[in-house]
């Protein structure tokens, strides 16, 4: 079973892609999807202290389950707007 992963900002530059696919087997957690992704893209390793997860477009805990067809996004600390964060 496959899930889609979306990457943005610094993470997409580190990985060199904005989208990836991971095999989630019988189901994984969002945190496990990140660890699996780090095997494909080692440059993404070591970020679990700073990233948040979204599953299907909503913020989710690292323990949130991910299955076939789900979309997981790795969300670095956001910085919209224009003045200093």
């Amino acid at each position, binding site marked *: 079973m496959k899930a889609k992963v979306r990457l943005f900002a610094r993470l997409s530059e580190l990985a060199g892609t904005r989208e990836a696919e991971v095999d989630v087997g019988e189901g994984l957690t969002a945190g496990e999807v990140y660890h699996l992704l780090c095997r494909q893209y080692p440059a993404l390793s070591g970020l679990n202290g700073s990233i948040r997860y979204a599953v299907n477009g909503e913020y989710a805990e690292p323990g949130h389950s991910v299955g076939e067809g789900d979309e997981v996004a790795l969300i670095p600390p956001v910085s919209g707007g*224009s003045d200093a964060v």
Partner: protein
Amino acid sequence: MLFEITSAALDAQRLIDHVRKDESGAVALFSGVVRNENLGRRVLYLEYDAYPEMAERVMREIAEEAMRRWAITDVAMQHRTGKLEIGETSLLIAVSAPHRKEAFDACHSLVDRFKEVVPVWKKEVWEGGEEWIEGEAVNRSG
């Protein structure tokens, strides 16, 4: 309500017209603009990335929070993506209300909430370097 992530130039008048209702005595508009300096560095331009589908959903959530908290009439928000030059507008938030205090207070709070939770990122490019600016990591339950 209107929530948009767009690569086109933002149009403040369109947002003002969108939120103004006959019961609105006030429209507060926040405009975030690209400036030429940050942390002593001379900024050449900014580049914004976003997760558009999620950003529009999160904007709606924080607008609905604001509608519950203040006596306001309507909310509209737009954030631009791509390369923005000095002086260009990156973010617009418009809030209408019967009275100015609620419009100002809700607009101010929405700018803060936007910067905490809406999945939009900024890269600063200056002479000799560039960096993705990362805000504070907020509570995961957000």
